[in-house]
């Protein structure tokens, strides 16, 4: 009876896993066949040998390497800045006392409740005024410091950074920035790793805002370029699928490498709220 239950449990979970990965399987099938395969009834279920031909089609239609480079560059710069500024603030909120501290921290959390769409139009007009249309400043500067990042680092810093360590640094004559840089940052590494990957993925996958502020195709990020590819090629399904596969695979690999810690951090961030 116990054995039967176990089999049933694994069968149900495996069925869920199948549903979870089927779209990826289908993506591979579509990307390795030519477009005519996607119009077949019954459909072709197996991988084909057209992948490299499809890749060439993608490269002919959109500047894939350019978009990949743009996306990588923007995600990296944004992540470095978010890590720096958010960890600085999170560390201070965790370890220092100053008037108004609690109110300022609650206020920081409350800003997360404002939906981004409310400021979409004014932000676009501001970007025009600043001359930031088609500039990556529009993607990086407004999100320079993340409220979630401050919250996340504060939670971690409270337990991880010992007061003795900070007191010793104070006696040595360290200023607050020196304490942050030399004492706190090394200890915060695990929390920074999660925040960094989380932010990197967010910027990489973002679509609406880059769509609005990037007009010049040579400035497009991957997601905007992929949406364009879909629009250009209503019929060339294989090329669109190949582009989608190439554009998503870097993050999938990144996730698979860090998944264990990443998933437990995601849960921790949600439950502690």
């Amino acid at each position, binding site marked *: 009876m116990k054995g039967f239950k*176990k089999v049933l*449990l*694994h069968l149900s*979970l495996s069925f*869920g*896993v199948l*549903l979870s*990965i089927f*779209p990826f399987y*289908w*993506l591979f099938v579509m990307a390795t066949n030519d477009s005519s395969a*996607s*119009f077949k*009834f019954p*459909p072709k279920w197996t991988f084909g040998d057209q992948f490299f031909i499809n890749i060439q089609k993608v490269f002919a239609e959109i500047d894939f390497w350019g978009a990949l480079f743009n996306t990588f560059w923007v995600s990296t710069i944004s992540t470095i800045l978010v890590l720096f500024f958010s960890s*600085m*603030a999170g*560390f*201070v*909120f965790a370890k220092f006392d*100053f*008037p108004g501290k609690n109110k*300022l921290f609650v206020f920081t959390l409350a*800003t997360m409740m*404002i939906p*981004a*769409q*409310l*400021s*979409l*139009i*004014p*932000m*676009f*007009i*501001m970007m025009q005024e600043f001359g930031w249309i088609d500039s990556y400043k529009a993607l990086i*500067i*407004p999100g320079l*410091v993340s*409220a979630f990042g401050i919250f996340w680092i504060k939670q971690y810093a409270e337990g991880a950074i010992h007061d003795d360590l900070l007191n010793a640094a104070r006696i040595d004559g360290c*200023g*607050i*920035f020196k304490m*942050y840089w030399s004492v706190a940052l090394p200890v915060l590494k695990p929390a920074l790793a999660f925040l960094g990957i989380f932010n990197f993925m967010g910027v990489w*996958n973002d*679509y*609406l805002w880059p769509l*609005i502020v990037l007009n010049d195709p040579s400035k497009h990020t991957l997601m905007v370029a*992929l*949406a364009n590819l*879909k629009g250009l090629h209503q019929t060339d399904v294989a090329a669109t699928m190949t582009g*989608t596969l190439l*554009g998503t695979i870097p*993050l999938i690999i990144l*996730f698979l490498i860090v*998944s*264990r810690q990443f*998933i437990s951090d*995601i849960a921790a961030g*949600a439950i502690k709220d």
Partner: protein
Amino acid sequence: MTQQKEMKKDRGKVWREIKKNKGPYLLISPFFITFIIFGLFPVVFSVYLALSSWDGIGDMEFVGLRNFEFLIKDAMFWKSIANTLLIWFISTVPMIVLALIIAFLLNSAFVKFSEFYKTLYFLPNVTAIVAVAIIFGVIFAPSYGLINYFLTTLGFDAIDWHNNSLGVKVAVAAMIIWRWTGYNAIIFLAGLQKIPESLYEAARIDGASTKDIFLKITIPLLKPVLLFVVITSTIGGMQTFVEPQLLVGNSGGAGGEGMTIVLYLYQQAFVKNLYGYGSAIAIGLFAIIMLFSLINWKVVDQKK
């Protein structure tokens, strides 16, 4: 006189405090500076825009509440609200039920390979929405898609997933369910694992049935997590944009069956350049999100 003096003294005190703590204030200031410029100012500006008429090129004209009068009579705006709510409902309910089931299965003591399962269940969530919309767009294609292949093979009629009123919403909901069920299962699982084993044991010793344990221990203790999931799903659901935009385009498809609130905002502001009207839609969206968050809060809070 004395009052002025006191105020001066107070102000002096505040300044002294700030000077004394200038280090901490300096290090947290980047967030507040960027928030004032890119968070607070745009919100105030959007109210001003909503009271104006502007196409981005000519002069901005103050029109008072005219945009809102228009909005209330705009059939497409109400349709976009109805569509958004329907999509939210038919995606959130199955998603929460499925996520709870997966979480309970993963939480049962037998499961080996739980890391393996967790990783694969979470995988859809790290996939870009654009990619999800493109892949599902093919699976739900009206003439040759996989779903229609199954439907016709089983003897049903094929469904026009781009134009059928319910069809568009089901296709969009499928994308949302696929991307978020695993994520929510992981959150529920973390909530379940926080419930101390001793509580279950004590209940079992007292002779409580599995059903009683579920209704009187698991559900009440899971309530904060449930609230988190419902609120985040609501806020996310009200902002649905990428899925319908890539499935049926900026127009929301024939008859606007796939038009959501944010897609309508995008279309009015960035396709038709109606910045004032777009801002009025944004404020309407904000009001709806606030209202629904409040309702969620009340409903979940009362389910004891």
